[in-house]
């Protein structure tokens, strides 16, 4: 597919064709501005392609009406470089918020939130506010929030971009653990260390085109 933003002089993604299987773990790598985040946005139905189709979870979402988007998003978890946590809510409340705003009851939240916080390694820190947590811990909260609804797909846009190498590896292990539960993980990264260690499928993009698609690949 092709995506050209309004007012942009050239396409951000140019005739890109990728297929990702259920349960796969895929890295998207490439220089800044190459179009990696645009892929995430297309998968989230935040933008739509100018040409071609986007199929997610077996459903063609290319021309999905915007009122159907909320329901569609519930099957996708998402993590970003800047965590996007609510600063005036504790770790527990941040995760519970994601459940409650899609109509889950407080009782459900009380059952599943401690579970998922335990899973990401934050047991005992449920009642800390984001500013009382390290960057790595904040990102764990974000991962917990993305995963609490047991999505089929987890998207991560440079999730380790703000973290030191050791913390990055920990987050990486966490995403790997989530992938092993059967969740498809799509991760955009700059971090050669991580890519080289994991030996998973690597798709490299340059100026909106795929220049490499390698199973068990390494960085550059």
């Amino acid at each position, binding site marked *: 597919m092709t995506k050209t933003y309004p007012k942009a002089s050239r396409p951000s993604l140019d005739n890109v064709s990728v297929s990702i299987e259920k349960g796969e773990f895929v890295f998207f790598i490439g220089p800044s501005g190459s179009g990696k985040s645009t892929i995430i946005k297309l998968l989230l139905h935040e933008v739509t392609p100018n040409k071609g189709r986007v199929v997610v979870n077996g459903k063609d979402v290319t021309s999905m009406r915007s*009122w159907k988007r909320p329901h569609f998003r519930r099957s996708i978890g998402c993590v970003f470089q800047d965590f996007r946590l609510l600063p005036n809510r504790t770790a527990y409340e941040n995760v519970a918020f994601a459940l409650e705003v899609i109509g889950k009851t407080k009782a459900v939240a009380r059952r599943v939130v401690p579970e998922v916080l335990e899973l990401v390694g934050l047991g005992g820190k449920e009642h800390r506010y984001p500013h009382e947590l390290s960057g790595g811990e904040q990102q764990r909260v974000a991962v917990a929030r993305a995963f609490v609804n047991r999505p089929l797909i987890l998207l991560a846009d440079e999730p380790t971009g703000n973290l030191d190498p050791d913390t990055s590896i920990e987050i990486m292990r966490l995403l790997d653990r989530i992938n092993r539960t059967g969740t498809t993980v799509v991760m955009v990264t700059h971090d050669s260390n991580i890519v080289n260690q994991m030996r998973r499928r690597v798709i490299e993009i340059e100026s909106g085109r795929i220049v490499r698609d390698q199973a068990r690949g390494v960085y550059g």
Partner: protein
Amino acid sequence: MRMKYVLSEVLVGLWRNVTMTIAMIITMAVSLFMLGGSGLLYQKVGDMKDLYYENVEVSIFLKTDATKEQVDALGQQLDQDPLVKDSTYVNKDQAYERFQQMYADAPDLVSAVKPDQLPESYRVKLNDPEQYKAIYDKYKTAEGIDTIVDQSKLLDKVFGVLSGFQNGALAIAMVMAVAALLLVANTIQVAAYSKRREVAVMKLVGASNWFIQAPFVLEAVVAGLFGSILGLLALIAVKVLAAGSSMAALEGLITPISWSDIFLTFPLMAAVGGVVSAVTAWVTLRFYLRV
């Protein structure tokens, strides 16, 4: 559960931005007060027109030196006229009685006038009050007639003034409504900005559009309803104050505005306040949050 969340969000939202909320409520109140007021006036003017024009009379005043024959001839002619529904002869004494009643407040004036000085007249009711001109043309040259006075001319003037008031109130209501709309739009933008992180997370995790919008829209609706309550209180205050002032004298002339009239305008004011606020908030959110 979700309702509780939405309601607490609404109250927090209104309180967080309390100066703006107050401004919004006051403008809304003034606008709705003017709207309610002009609605009442419209209704009253309608009632009064029916009442007054129904009873409108043409008075044919006779010269003081008109002879008995001339008076009787005129009376017969009027009785046979197809334009005339009914005519009554008013002699000097009856005229004086009416005069006394009319100016009961001014005894000096009454004592200065003697029955002799008042003219005799015919009070003529027309089948169609609009036909005044035809009557006037027909009788202006008849012997013994001094002047012909059409009450509807006077009524036209009175109603002209009243509908002027009404249009003025409507115009103010409109201008204030525009101000209220802008304030609602602005308040909603500020509210959406202060909750932008929450909204971003809600969109990300797939909260439904109505769930994201409901607290903002309800915030505006609550302000609109408060505004309409204030507007109602203002109408009540005007009635109470008017009853105790010189306006009370007008009550005999203008059919009085009853309490039930006032309370019946409240649903209108509340509906306009609520719906207009809700629509404005919703449209603002569509542009601002793109949800």
